[in-house]
């Protein structure tokens, strides 16, 4: 048995080694088409862009004119986090759930797609969408509400958005491996909206009941909010702890999700 398989292997001409440049090209092509297909999909992009910007315009700018610039500054972070969560949760979760159901994931696994290119492509797409959301909110904050920001603060806020989407990618991925097909958007909204509320993104935490305030550190969005507030100088102290917690969330969700994905496909 062994002898047969060895002779088979040695008789086979080796034409399959792939130059590094082409492997890299495959990663780029995967990421590029993943970005293209979602940027062209209005039912994905519109809610992601419209909800945070409309809320910020209404509650952060129009309705808070009398309350001074600090409200617009605070809510820039809140709606920034709210806006960053959705490309992660929905971009990863919904698309993974649908593609497991529709056979695209199976097809890609049968193809010689380089390992991880599929997830990496989705990740880059979510990071790009998050960057667009933050840039839109920044433009509104600076242009309409005249929030005073240094270049450093604005850049850090964009960075917070681009990297802050990752824990939500991992969480979305986990949900995407648990639910198949059309059920995913509903399930993710059940996660997204309550989590936003309970993390104090809509109503400041100190106006919530005491129990809910104490529960807040359970949610990754709470920590991203704290991190953003620290970036804009509205929170002092423990930003590094929040960063560590976010890293931990990401790692745990990602590990569970990849294990499920490997086992159940």
């Amino acid at each position, binding site marked *: 048995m062994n002898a047969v398989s060895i002779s088979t292997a040695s*008789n086979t001409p080796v034409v399959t080694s792939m130059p590094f440049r082409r492997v890299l090209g495959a990663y780029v*092509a995967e990421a590029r088409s993943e970005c293209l297909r979602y940027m062209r999909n209005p039912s994905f992009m519109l809610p992601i862009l419209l909800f945070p910007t409309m809320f910020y315009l209404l509650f952060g700018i129009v309705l808070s004119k009398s309350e001074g610039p600090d409200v617009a500054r605070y809510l820039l972070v809140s709606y920034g986090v709210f806006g960053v969560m959705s490309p992660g949760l929905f971009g990863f979760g919904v698309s993974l759930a649908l593609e497991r159901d529709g056979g695209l994931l199976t097809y890609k696994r049968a193809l010689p797609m*380089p390992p991880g290119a599929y997830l990496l492509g989705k990740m880059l797409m979510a990071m790009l969408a998050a960057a667009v959301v933050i840039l839109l909110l920044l433009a509104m904050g600076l242009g309409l509400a005249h929030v005073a920001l240094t270049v450093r603060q604005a850049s850090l806020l964009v960075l917070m958005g681009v990297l802050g989407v990752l824990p939500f990618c991992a969480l979305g991925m986990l949900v995407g491996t648990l639910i198949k097909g059309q059920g995913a958007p509903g399930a993710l909204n059940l996660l997204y909206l309550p989590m936003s509320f309970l993390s104090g993104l809509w109503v400041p935490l100190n106006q919530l009941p005491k129990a809910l305030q104490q529960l807040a550190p359970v949610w990754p969005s709470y920590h991203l909010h704290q991190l953003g507030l620290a970036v804009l100088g509205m929170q002092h102290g423990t930003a590094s702890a929040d960063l560590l917690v976010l890293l931990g969330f990401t790692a745990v969700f990602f590990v569970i999700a990849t294990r499920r994905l490997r086992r159940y496909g």
Partner: protein
Amino acid sequence: MPATSDVVARLSAAVKRYGPLTALDGVDLVLHRGELLAVLGPNGAGKSTSISLLLGLIRPDGGRAELFGRDPQQIDARRRIGVMLQSAMLPITLRVTELLRLVASYYPNPRPLQESAALAGIGDLLQRPYGKLSGGQQRRVQFALALCGRPELVFLDEPTVGMDIDARQKLWAAMRALVAEGCSVVLTTHYLEEAEALAQRVVVMGKGRVLSEGSVDALRAQVPLTRIRCVTDLDAATVANWPQVAVAERDGGRLRISTSAAESVLRRLLDADAALSELEVQRAGLAEAFTELTRDEPAIEQEAA
């Protein structure tokens, strides 16, 4: 028997169980270079499980699956294959060129885009978004994706489902062109005429086993029946009692006879009815052979139990 190096894909005593259900029960399957193999069988026969093993999508519980002498889960083995799956919903917002470029990027030495498009007959669809194409056009695009990497082996899972006759003929021509290039093809299909038209070798599966394997002619020969149709006044029941007549039944004004000895039955028919007319004699097709083979399944099941 061709040399071992000629084997591009192989299942050896492959067993796959899903809980209490045995999807594959010791399947041996060998595919040689440049060969078109059709895998036939009713639903649940184990066709797609066999394909999934060869694609490395699942692992066998027993036995082994090999692609080019390697584990199919090794990406180097899969860089030599192309795939067309029955149910893959490709991204609808991507254009056909973008899909072709993406899939071609996975391979070390892909075909030029125009060549893939021409082979699959989709040169006029390149700029269209995939979601705007008809079902038959989408199948042709999927076929182009299967061959764009210049594979040595292509898996086609029910490739012509939902195609009209014209589109199906075109795809058959493209498959023949692939085989002429030296590419091996594994084809699963429900259409027996497809296997009859294309395949050099046919494997019939049922209940997770290989029921029969051989050339189309050899498969037909397993059911050595000939069909006779004619207009006659002879009584069907009487004819049915003649030696070597398997079935005789009336179909309107015609009598239909299945027999394993056409010559002697014909002689007797013509003697018995001088007024007999509109005589047709036809060799049983793959369809009869297939029905005959899969009809044996319950017996096999009982044996196993």
